């Protein structure tokens, strides 16, 4: 199908974008790479009256270090981040998650912030943002605010973004050299939509896990942290017994939805298996 008619503007700077967003309220939508939004527009599931392109805003096309964070502006395309040495070195978990996002043609155009702002419940980058303690930098004409990734994903396709606001950047926590990471996903076909995925990040000091971050896709209505499993691993060795206890704890709290692609019980089975593999893979440093 073809999208419903809409008006279009492409301001040359962020101030112009925010002005257009403010002027259009709920009727305005941001266009970055369009890889999530345009399919929905073609299917007429979404009908914005005004599409505001940020593709002329070179000021939003940056990937840089700020203190403990790797900050990714709204126009950073997924393929560019995937190929970036900075991402490989500072946030290896993000580098592990990116190849699972769509296909090459989608990643060439789609942006990191666009995927996050879209809020698909099975979006790999939402799990990455959770385990990397992502800070969502939200801009509007009348000011800016930041929201922790954990408070950003409210429900499927629903985020903390309000009309007139856009996700201007996301700050991922830089990973230290003694961290272990893994991102594993299962889908009905490779590079298709995920059925389930697990992101793990373990901060190891002298053989003990100082902090653990575990996030799952397919374990609830949005990507979610699995705190019960994190707590078991924290201040512990990550040995077979600890992994088993963490997996059991996760199993008990997963609320896996059923849909066309997998029923809830199958998803829960897949998630616990992926978690065990992810923890072992992270510790093996593969």
């Amino acid at each position, binding site marked *: *199908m*073809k*999208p*419903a*008619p*809409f*008006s*279009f503007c*492409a301001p040359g700077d962020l101030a112009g974008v925010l002005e257009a967003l403010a002027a259009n309220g709920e009727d305005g939508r941001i*266009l970055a790479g*369009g*890889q999530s939004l*345009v*399919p929905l527009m*073609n*299917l007429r599931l979404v009908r914005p009256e005004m*599409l505001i*392109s940020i*593709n002329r805003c070179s000021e939003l096309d940056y990937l840089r270090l700020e203190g403990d964070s790797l900050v990714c502006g709204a126009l950073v395309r997924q*393929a560019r981040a995937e190929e970036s040495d900075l991402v490989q070195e500072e946030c290896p978990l993000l580098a592990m998650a990116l190849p699972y996002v*769509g*296909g*090459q*043609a*989608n990643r*060439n*155009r789609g942006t990191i912030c666009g995927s996050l702002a879209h809020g698909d419940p099975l979006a790999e980058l939402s799990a990455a943002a959770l385990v990397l303690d992502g800070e969502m930098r939200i801009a509007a004409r009348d000011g800016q605010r930041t929201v922790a990734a954990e408070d950003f994903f409210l429900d499927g396709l629903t985020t903390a973004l309000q009309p007139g606001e856009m996700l201007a950047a996301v700050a991922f926590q830089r990973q230290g050299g003694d961290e272990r990471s893994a991102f594993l996903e299962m889908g009905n*076909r*490779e*590079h298709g939509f995920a059925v389930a995925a697990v992101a793990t990040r373990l901060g190891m000091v002298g053989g003990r896990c100082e902090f653990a971050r575990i996030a799952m896709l397919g374990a609830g209505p949005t990507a979610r942290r699995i705190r019960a499993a994190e707590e078991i691993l924290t201040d512990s060795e990550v040995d077979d017994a600890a992994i088993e206890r963490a997996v059991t704890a996760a199993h008990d709290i997963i609320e896996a939805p059923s849909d066309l692609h997998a029923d809830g019980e199958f998803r829960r089975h897949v998630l616990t298996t992926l978690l065990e593999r992810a923890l072992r893979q992270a510790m093996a440093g593969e």
Partner: protein
Amino acid sequence: MPEKIEVTLTINGETRRGLAEPRLLLADFLRHELGLMGAHIGCEHGVCGACTILIDGRTARSCLHFAVALDGAVIDTVEGLAGPDELHPIQEAFHQNHALQCGYCTSGFLLTTLEFLRRNPDPDEDEIRRALTNNLCRCTGYTNIVKAVAEAAAALRAAD
């Protein structure tokens, strides 16, 4: 109805201008405004890959872009792969290996292969299958397409 906006693109090395309503997809702009029929429209939501073109040198779905949002971009389509009476080595390999039947998906496969072989000039079969995973063929099947990509890779390496 929103007004039409002038769009200037560099397509296969030539500057082309046209008028586009904001909702006009790049695929339709290429086909109906500019007469470039090589990009085919299959699913119209980014799944099948038949409309694959290159934007600024990288593959993209022309059904997932609005022409007006690409003003100034460099676009390459299957028409630019080779001159009118010649075949690009990738096209030649598809021809030799019967890697197309109806041909509807072929231009998308050709451009996906072009980008893939630039990144990975000497792929194994598994890598080829992964690279083609987001392009769908409904009649020839994939065996001959995979063979063609491997042969194209060898031909391009030999030509280097």
